[in-house]
């Protein structure tokens, strides 16, 4: 439902902005080549990022013999797994900042597949509103 998804965004408009990212888990492999960018990021920039964004909890977990990934968990309970396999340090930084700016809403097209010039004024019929006949 588009309306329930938009309510999360309206929270920002009403008051102050709240970062929707709750937790970041950076999973790297200490030996694998695909993890190189993430390892450089972890050794270099992640502490600075954590200091600048105290609202986010950051875990760094070694995950041997597997490709690196970031697991992001948001305030609305949704989690997102991003593969950062073979990305450079700069690209990893971009991904992390993207997640920090994201809301947890699942991405879906909000297009309506119908159009009418004369929409229903009284509301579409539905079985739950069926007006009980009164004598």
């Amino acid at each position, binding site marked *: 439902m588009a309306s329930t998804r938009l309510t999360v965004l309206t929270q920002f408009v009403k008051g102050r902005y709240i970062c929707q990212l709750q937790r970041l888990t950076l999973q790297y492999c200490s030996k694998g080549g695909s993890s190189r960018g993430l390892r450089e990021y972890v050794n270099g920039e992640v502490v600075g990022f954590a200091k600048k964004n105290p609202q986010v909890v950051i875990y760094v977990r070694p995950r041997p013999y597997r490709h690196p990934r970031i697991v992001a968990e948001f305030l609305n309970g949704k989690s997102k797994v991003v593969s950062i396999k073979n990305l450079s340090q700069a690209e990893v930084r971009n991904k992390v900042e993207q997640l920090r700016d994201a809301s947890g809403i699942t991405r879906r097209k909000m297009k309506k597949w119908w159009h009418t010039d004369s929409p*229903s*004024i*009284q*509301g*579409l*019929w539905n079985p739950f*509103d*069926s*007006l009980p*006949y009164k004598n």
Partner: protein
Amino acid sequence: KMRGGTVDRSIRRAKIFALTKGFRGRPKNCYSLAIRAAHKALQHAYRGRKLKKRDMRSLWITRISNAAQEQNLPYSKFVHNMARLEIQLNRKILSELAIYEPRSFQALADLARKRQKDGLLSAL
């Protein structure tokens, strides 16, 4: 290979093949089969144009009947009293009202019920 074939033949055939576009199997590509398939398709289309009008009307009637039953009014009484009240709404519009403007439909059902009662009273 066309031996002494005229241009007219390919033009004539192209008209048939234009009708058999999208058909399954050889009828869309082989001329002798395509003629038969095309003519049958045209017959089906002729019949379908007449059937469509019947089918739509019966769909509208089903919908109106269900909407009127929600108002505890049988379709026959609803339609009969619409006619007695000289309300010129046809079944297509009545079915659309039932879907998109249910309150209006309820108002019509109330009118029909009232006319039905008045009709009974005047007969007494």
